[in-house]
């Protein structure tokens, strides 16, 4: 049945070369854990991507219940975690995944660093990778405020004060992040929500696309 459906589409649109191009690529022996077990270090990039996919999916589902409003944010999180079936699991996936994705991206960075994979001709991909690291940290920072509990509030106060310590423009960064020059409140929460679910994920997807196109074009760096 599926084969017939596939053939029907393929006959009209010739999709086989498209996915062949995406799926067929060389996996050299030195990055294949089946040949050398120590090559598992080459999996960290893929694992980062995998956890990112989980974050996007679980995040999409969480927004079905979450409200970015000072009156209701905490209550909606409490409701989705305690009253909705599997709420604990879905929120748990997003909560633990957030830490895991930072661990994975860090391990991936270490692997690239110690195998010297950032060297010519892959400097641009390293730069995009650094930007991705920044976006992920930004997602972690903005997402931390959203449950609107005491821990979230004070972590964000501290984070915004750190941003304010930047010379010259610090005060402006603070106002732009918090939405007000003294209050960390309603406007901060909506801003962080918008940044967390729209702006940073958009940047993340674009940068990941560039990251993957470059690695496909340049191939995996050679053995040590």
């Amino acid at each position, binding site marked *: 049945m599926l084969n017939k459906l596939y053939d029907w589409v393929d006959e009209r649109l010739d999709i086989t070369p498209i996915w062949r191009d995406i799926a067929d690529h060389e996996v050299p022996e030195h990055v294949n854990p089946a040949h050398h077990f120590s090559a598992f270090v080459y999996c960290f990039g893929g694992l980062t991507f995998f956890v990112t996919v*989980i974050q996007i*999916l*679980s995040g999409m*589902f969480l927004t*079905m*219940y979450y*409200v970015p409003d000072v009156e*209701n944010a905490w*209550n*909606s999180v*409490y*409701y*989705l975690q305690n*009253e*909705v*079936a*599997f*709420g604990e*699991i*879905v929120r748990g*996936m997003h909560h633990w995944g957030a830490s895991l994705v930072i661990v994975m991206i860090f391990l991936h960075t270490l692997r690239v660093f110690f195998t010297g994979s950032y060297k010519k001709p892959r400097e641009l991909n390293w730069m995009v990778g650094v930007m991705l690291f920044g976006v992920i940290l930004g997602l972690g920072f903005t997402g931390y405020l959203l449950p609107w509990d005491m821990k979230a509030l004070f972590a964000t106060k501290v984070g915004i004060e750190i941003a304010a310590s930047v010379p010259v423009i610090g005060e402006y960064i603070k106002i732009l992040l918090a939405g007000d020059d003294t209050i960390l409140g309603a406007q901060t929460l909506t801003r962080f929500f918008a940044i967390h679910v729209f702006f940073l994920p958009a940047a993340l997807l674009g940068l990941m696309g560039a990251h993957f196109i470059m690695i496909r074009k340049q191939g995996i760096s050679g053995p040590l």
Partner: protein
Amino acid sequence: MSNNRVSRRQFLSYTIMGVGGFMASSLVLPMVRFAVDPALQVEGDSDFIVTDQLVSELTEEPIRVSFSYEQQDAWYTSEVTNDAWVYKAGDEIIALSPVCKHLGCTVQWEGSADFPNQFFCPCHNGRYEKNGNNIPGTPPLGPLDQFVVEVRDGYLALGEVKPNFIVS
């Protein structure tokens, strides 16, 4: 060996699809159950709400009786006010829901000067007779819903909303 041997390629692709499908579903199923939860919530029994309307003051003419109750909407609790159209038919008390059976607007007794002795819905000119029966040729496809009523200490109490049970 039977005639339909499983080739190495088939075996691998079945195994990978099976394991991959198991892993993918263990990720996705909790999220799907989480998303469809509203459809699977069990509805609580609705209690009778006692209104401020003295039963002795009811007449043959439908009047609007407002009633308030506390509505628990997930994490949001609020005081909601709804209406019923109530009149007496002999000894029986009839309380009709004001929700139009066409597309859910609010009907009004003699809401249009052109149609006396009828419920009228301003959205698409839906009309109902006094017992809630929809008038053929107007948009509604069924009669107005009806409240189960009780008398408590002389006051009107409204219960569950049911499909109209006086129109036959």
